């Protein structure tokens, strides 16, 4: 039996290669995503571990403002550093000046690194990391030794177009913002790479001048333990001598904090990518199922002959399953290799977003290899199981008969079961919509999955109208060739249905996401229209803080009526006993003149130690007007704040809004993260905008946006994400198209004689190609129509369940029309190979084929 299986595999090389391609791509995607995620984690781990000292002296408290780009005003003096260095537990104490709000401009005057990873500016001083190696290593040149010199990380220097010796432009937060430096060297973290962050290393004096207004002081101190001293002992010893407002923590704690923080972000990326890998594999499973169904039905006579010669049912089943197994083995192996390449490609893609991942961490781990094989084999075997069983059901007598089709069971049972499943799906979705216990999205998601699967199962039935329509349309436009194409798509409804279903799944997700994205855009447009009542907004693309001097100058611009300045800071509030990290928005008095907060209770006027809460925050904290909440700010200071009022949730400010004075009191270094400006009545808006832009002309990344530009910025971000999602779904669609190629190739082979006959009675080569192309288009359109209809419904239902956040419903009609066109194009492309093959057939040989 095994030898027969082997022969079968060899005899059907091409056909199997095509369906193996589905496995290869699916597993390739999975392995690629896994390898990439592992590499991403390794990159961050290496950097975190390679850049953390044995112990660190830093501002006290739970909130580390520096991670969010917020500085504090408390400092460590050189005397404090000397005191630390004098401790017997300390081998070395190095003072650091961590600067915020600086940006590197490339030779083209554009921000290096775009909107991705942050710019880290600090003084260069040699210090050791937890493994006893230097934190930073030189790549080229040297370290900054006097003012006017800078060392950059190698990849930023390259991205900015700089070579050692060039003049580099930096935007700095004090004094003259735009300054030039001489690039004296390039460096990198000992752990390898910088994960896209831009490193700006300055001479200590200059760093102090720029970031600390010239104070001879430091923002933190890195400690190296003396021989035989543990990190805990080191931190404990240091704690005793640190100045007020500071604490000492072990490197292990710093690493854990950073890993937790980054880990969440990395998990999101990894889950996000894995979702698409799963979709691709599900689509691949459809293709495999379909291919085996066709192969089995084409081999009926052979199966029957085997049965007639005494093979048991089980032997026939097994021979098909072994074939599937071997195919899965080959496909998974190739898939793993492809995955390795794909992960490098993904790394390249992320590099353009500013996230640098070193090639050497992108390797296939044993876990990835095992996952790839297990997934590939299980999916293939499961997909091949039903066709294998069907092969075994062929009665021996079929070997003698001429009507060589596997008995297809009536559609009725399918229809009944499918309808029941559909109703169950509707019930689940309805449960989600009316707010059944648990997360609504899970109910709806479960219902949606049932719908997709059921539609796939019912595709032969529900797709019929689409196919009938395409037959008559094709017939009308393309005459007999079109009519025949329509007939061919209709003649084996299961085959057509299963092939179309693969595409249907991809397009259902695409359309559902499209509905959500366009609803999100519409909602945001409406919010901007209704709530962003200021004429201009001044923000960085990263929404980070920028120096206050710009705001000061803008207040002086002619025609400006109101200027409201806001600063977002990370804070910690206790929610039900555990500290919860959140953001507070510090606002000035003009804020409520520009923006109208709809108050639920209390007043929107705050001053002194007061705060406003959004309804959502108020519920979380179980605090309302009149209550007092304890808020811990960066630097460790906790300030009790009286809740002056509660407002309806709005995106114009954070759930916790405080007067800017409170930030000052907490010792947070002032910067602006957003400035809202209203123009005086009668002033020329265009002229005012021009004047405002002049204020920020030396900081080209700080933009003055009117409403329209702000809308475009937001919808641009939504669209960017949408395109990434479409890009990831494209693979599923490509696999589905391969499925069409496969089905068509098999159908063409199966119909060799018929094609020969058609050619003999006068079907020209061109018309034959048209016929096959149209069949392909019919399948693609069927998949697209089913998928888009289903995706629309799912998207609308999901939007409904999210209507608190997505208040507007918008249907991406033009995108859907585009998808349909793309589906037709894919249909045409999928037919190229089968059509060319069919038209190359020799008429006579085709007729003579058995």
């Amino acid at each position, binding site marked *: 039996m095994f030898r027969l299986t082997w022969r079968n595999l060899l005899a059907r090389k091409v056909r199997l290669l095509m369906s193996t391609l589905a496995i290869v791509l699916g597993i390739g995607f999975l392995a690629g995503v896994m390898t990439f995620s592992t590499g991403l984690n390794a990159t961050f781990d290496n950097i975190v571990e390679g850049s953390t000292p044995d112990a660190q002296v830093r501002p006290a408290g739970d909130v580390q403002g520096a991670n969010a780009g917020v500085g504090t005003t408390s400092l460590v003096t050189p005397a404090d550093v000397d005191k630390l260095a004098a401790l017997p537990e300390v081998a070395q104490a190095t003072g650091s000046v961590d600067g915020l709000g600086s940006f590197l401009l490339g030779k083209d005057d554009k921000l290096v690194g775009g909107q991705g990873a942050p710019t880290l500016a600090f003084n260069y001083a040699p210090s050791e990391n937890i493994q006893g190696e230097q934190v930073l290593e030189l790549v080229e040149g040297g370290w900054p030794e006097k003012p006017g010199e800078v060392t950059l990380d190698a990849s930023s220097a390259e991205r900015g177009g700089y070579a050692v010796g060039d003049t580099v432009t930096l935007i700095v937060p004090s004094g003259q913002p735009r300054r030039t430096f001489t690039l004296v060297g390039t460096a990198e973290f000992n752990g390898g790479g910088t994960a896209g962050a831009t490193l700006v290393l300055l001479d200590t004096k200059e760093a102090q001048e720029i970031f600390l207004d010239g104070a001879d002081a430091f923002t933190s101190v890195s400690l190296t333990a003396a021989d035989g001293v543990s990190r805990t002992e080191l931190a404990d010893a240091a704690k005793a001598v640190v100045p007020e407002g500071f604490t000492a923590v072990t490197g292990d704690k710093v690493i854990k904090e950073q890993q937790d923080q980054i880990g969440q972000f990395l998990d999101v990326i990894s889950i996000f990518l894995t979702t698409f890998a799963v979709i691709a594999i599900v689509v691949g499973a459809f293709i495999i199922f379909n291919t085996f169904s066709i192969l089995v039905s084409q081999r009926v006579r052979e199966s029957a002959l085997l049965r007639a010669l005494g093979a048991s049912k089980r032997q026939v089943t097994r021979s098909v399953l072994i074939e599937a197994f071997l195919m899965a083995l080959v496909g998974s192996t190739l898939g793993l290799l492809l995955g390795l390449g794909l992960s490098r490609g993904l790394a390249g893609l992320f590099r353009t977003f500013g996230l640098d991942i070193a090639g050497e961490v992108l390797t296939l781990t044993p876990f990835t290899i095992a996952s790839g094989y297990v997934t590939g084999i299980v999916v293939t075997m499961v997909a091949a199981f039903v066709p294998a069983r069907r092969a075994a059901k062929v009665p021996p007598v079929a070997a003698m008969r001429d*009507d060589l089709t596997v008995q297809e069971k009536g559609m009725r049972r399918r229809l009944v079961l499918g309808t029941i499943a559909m109703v169950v799906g509707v019930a689940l979705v309805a449960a989600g919509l009316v707010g059944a216990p648990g997360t609504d999205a899970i109910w709806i998601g479960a219902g949606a999955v049932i719908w997709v699967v059921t539609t796939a199962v019912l595709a032969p039935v529900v797709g019929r109208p689409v196919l009938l329509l395409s037959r008559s349309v094709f017939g009308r436009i393309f*005459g*007999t*060739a079109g*009519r*025949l194409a329509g*007939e*061919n798509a*209709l*003649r084996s409804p299961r085959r057509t249905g299963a092939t179309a279903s693969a595409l249907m799944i991809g397009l259902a997700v695409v359309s559902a996401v499209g509905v959500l994205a366009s609803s999100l855009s519409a909602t945001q447009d409406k919010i901007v229209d209704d709530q962003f009542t200021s004429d201009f907004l001044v923000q960085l693309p990263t929404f980070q803080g920028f120096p206050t001097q710009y705001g000061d100058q803008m207040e002086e611009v002619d025609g400006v009526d109101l200027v409201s300045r806001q600063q977002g800071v990370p804070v910690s509030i206790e929610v039900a006993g555990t500290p919860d990290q959140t953001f507070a928005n510090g606002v000035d008095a003009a804020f409520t003149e520009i923006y109208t907060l709809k108050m639920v209770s209390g007043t929107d006027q705050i001053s002194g130690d007061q705060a406003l809460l959004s309804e959502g925050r108020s519920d979380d904290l179980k605090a309302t007007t009149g209550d007092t909440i304890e808020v811990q700010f960066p630097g460790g200071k906790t300030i009790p704040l009286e809740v002056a009022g509660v407002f309806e949730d709005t995106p114009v400010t954070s759930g916790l809004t405080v007067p800017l004075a409170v930030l000052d009191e907490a010792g947070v270094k002032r910067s602006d993260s957003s400035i809202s400006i209203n123009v005086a009545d009668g002033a020329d808006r265009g002229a005012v905008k021009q004047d405002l832009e002049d204020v920020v002309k030396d900081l080209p990344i700080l933009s003055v946006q009117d409403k329209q530009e702000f809308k475009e910025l937001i919808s641009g971000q939504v669209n960017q994400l949408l395109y990434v999602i479409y890009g990831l779904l494209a693979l599923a669609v490509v696999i589905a198209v391969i499925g069409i190629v496969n089905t068509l190739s098999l159908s063409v082979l199966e119909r060799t*004689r*018929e094609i020969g*006959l*058609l*050619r*003999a*009675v*006068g*079907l*020209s*080569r*061109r*018309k034959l190609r048209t016929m096959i192309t149209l069949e392909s288009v019919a399948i693609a359109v069927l998949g697209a129509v089913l998928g888009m209809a289903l995706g629309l419904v799912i998207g609308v239902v999901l939007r409904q369940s999210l209507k608190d956040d997505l208040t507007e419903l918008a249907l991406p009609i033009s995108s859907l029309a585009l998808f349909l066109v793309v589906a037709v194009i894919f249909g045409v492309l999928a037919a190229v190979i089968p059509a060319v093959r069919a038209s190359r057939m020799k*008429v*006579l040989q085709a*007729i003579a084929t058995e």
Partner: protein
Amino acid sequence: MTEQPREGAVAEVAASARDLVKTYGKGEAEVRALDGVSVDLMKGEFTAVMGPSGSGKSTLMHCLAALDTPTSGEAIVDGTSLGRLKDKDLTTLRRERVGFVFQSFNLVPTLSAEENILLPLSLAGRKPDRDWFDQVVDSVGLRDRLGHRPSEMSGGQQQRVACARALVSKPSIVFADEPTGNLDSTSSAEVLGFLRRSVDEFGQTVVMVTHDPVAASYTDRILFLADGLIVDELREPDRDAILEKMSKLQDVAAARKQAG
């Protein structure tokens, strides 16, 4: 239809072969399926081609029917030499001037009997001549089967549909390769009777390959092929004469085999 009758020719030529040679394979393994066949097939005549298996009957037919290209020599259909035609023109020629009936698998399974019959016309985008269609359909006796698909018809009915299809475009010549090879004697008689009538009543030209002396006795002229050559010919044949010629041919073939 008597424009420009050829000098000396009593009847008009529908198709002819001139020194037709067809070889398969190369060197040692070379097979000469046709070894220089020259023959004229006359308009309005029912011709049979007979001969031992492997003698080149099908090959001759395929070359004349624009389904295959000869190695050398010339095949002429309706005054057109096929040698210089491109695939596109060959396709058109097959569609418009030649009809076919194969031994089996003559019909497109997705189309009804009527659609199959009209296939060459609809492929050409031509409107069927309704009277002619009715005449053909009635003459094959398939009026009540027109809506059926091939899978719903018997082998004999399918062959009659194929014959109707071959005639409906009014081709210059109809080729039939063992059209009754798979049929019982009753169905065979129906098909052959129809082909005969199409010659007698509609003036059609038909060439048919057959092994069956009974089938051959329906024809006006029999060409005997052996080893890729036309070795004999019979006019107005009767069964006994056919059998006699056949057995002679077989003897020669057997003798040659022994000698070689």
